[in-house]
């Protein structure tokens, strides 16, 4: 009876965890915790540095602008980091991330189609928030349909999946440009405006709603993390251990599409950011638990966006853009990864 009562007791479990772990295990836990703390502090430092570096003239103005910039960088970094890492897990591959599979291209396509069918007048009449929510909702629905179908068919063949993802991505891109060519000039301008938002000019309203959605998405991920540890064992083992596999994968995919909508709405597609961030996080954080991995990936994502934009914006005076740098570094990394795994 006493055992039964203690079953629900968190503290007892924690004590038991401690009691039944070896010194080596505790040392490893401490190391993971230390690494996560350092990463978190580095994020904080990067954000403060970005805010306060070389402010000239009015502090109020600089703070207002920079807070919005840092805010969007934080949201993008966290969304990309978390979504890429869990996507890797459910795809069962370190090479597949949402962007590689064409998620953000799909977001742009959905947006274009909405403008195409309803015209920019309706589009502009809606507030920024409504527009984002409609886009995100449509993306979740289409994304789920598409990727359930994809994973159902070819889930065993990595090369086919990468290929399909890239083909789908460029298909969506050309559909987007086709649709935007057919649009009236007015509609097209509106679309350009929404599609290529940059870090430098972030709409305050949009940032708010997107930040809220991002936090909701991340929170929705928390109860799934324990199950994702089991998903990492592979389909067969997960089923044998009684994991409701399809439910976990579907829910995770829903959260991933939501988070992709978040980051794409703020900065547009960044093809290889997620790939670098998630793989770096897996290397830096020596743990198999997704609570650690996702947190690490969120931190690494924030470091990459805030740190990267700091270098590009402040140190290089906007001589180039963050997307260009990320795609250059990430593209090379992607090719290296492909060559190592696939051995062409």
């Amino acid at each position, binding site marked *: 009876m006493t*055992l039964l009562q203690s079953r629900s007791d968190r503290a007892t479990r924690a004590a038991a965890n401690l009691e039944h*772990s070896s010194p080596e295990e505790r040392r490893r836990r401490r190391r993971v915790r230390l690494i996560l703390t350092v990463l978190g502090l580095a994020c904080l430092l990067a954000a403060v540095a970005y805010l306060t570096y070389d402010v000239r003239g009015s502090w109020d103005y600089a703070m207002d602008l920079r807070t919005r910039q840092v805010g969007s960088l934080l949201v993008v970094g966290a969304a990309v980091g978390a979504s890429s890492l869990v996507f890797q897990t459910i795809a*069962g591959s370190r090479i597949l991330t949402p962007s590689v599979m064409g998620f953000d291209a799909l977001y742009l396509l959905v947006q274009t189609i909405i403008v195409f069918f309803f015209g920019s007048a309706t589009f502009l009449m809606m507030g920024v928030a409504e527009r984002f929510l409609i886009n995100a909702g449509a993306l979740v629905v289409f994304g789920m349909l598409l990727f359930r179908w994809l994973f159902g068919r070819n889930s065993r063949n990595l090369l086919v999946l990468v290929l399909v993802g890239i083909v789908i991505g460029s298909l969506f891109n050309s559909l987007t440009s086709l649709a935007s060519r057919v649009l009236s000039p007015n509609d097209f301008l509106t679309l350009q405006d929404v599609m290529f938002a940059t870090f430098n000019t972030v709409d305050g309203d949009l940032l708010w709603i997107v930040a809220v959605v991002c936090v909701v998405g991340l929170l929705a991920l928390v109860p799934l993390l324990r199950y994702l540890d089991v998903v990492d064992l592979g389909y067969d083992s997960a089923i044998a*251990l009684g994991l*409701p596999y399809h439910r976990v994968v579907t829910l995770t995919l829903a959260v991933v599409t939501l988070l992709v909508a978040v980051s794409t709405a703020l900065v547009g597609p960044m093809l290889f950011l997620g790939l670098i961030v998630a793989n770096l996080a897996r290397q830096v954080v020596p743990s198999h638990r997704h609570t650690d991995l996702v947190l690490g990936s969120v931190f690494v994502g924030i470091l990459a966006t805030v740190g990267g934009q700091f270098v590009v914006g402040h140190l290089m005076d906007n001589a180039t853009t963050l997307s260009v740098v990320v795609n250059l570094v990430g593209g090379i990394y992607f090719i290296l990864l492909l060559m190592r795994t696939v051995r062409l």
Partner: protein
Amino acid sequence: MIRVRDVTHRYDKQVVLDEVGLTLPVGQLTSIVGANGAGKSTLLSVISRLIRPEQGTVFIDDLDVGTAGADAISKRLAVLRQDNRITARLSVIDLVRFGRFPYSKGRLTPEDHVVVEEALDYLDLQLFRDRYLDQLSGGQRQRAYIAMILAQMLLTYSPTMNHMFHTAPIDLVAWFEVILIAILAYLVVGADRWVVRRRRDKASAE
């Protein structure tokens, strides 16, 4: 007891299992024997619900595998496969703890920890508990998987079982290795019947 009733499954148009029925009784070691492509692994996959058959049902005790909750089945049926490709960086103890997933969904209770320790003891893995799986030899790794499955099958800590295994730990390892070899070689009795039947079908069709 595992009962298979009228299970039919095909890949594309190729019928692999044709109304297969069999009963695997408790406390016996069963081998399934058959020619290549006779459907032995498909049958095992259907029983362990990795594949959902087109027709027919599988019962574990009285639970219908198709409709019973996933965790109810996983408390009674463990699966050990010959190839386990895990990419995550897992230590032996991490792996064995996954065996308790059907019971505590990843949040281990004190009882779970005791069972995990027992499983490690039975398979003589205490020395390797903190080694990562990729640092183990093939045999040691298989033992780690067996420990996980043992942790999955032990309901709770039970003194009699403890006694049984402690008096004959070697036997236990040997016993599991027999199963292992059985699964590895896909040797199980009874398949001949279907092979024969399929051949006959083919013959009559021709």
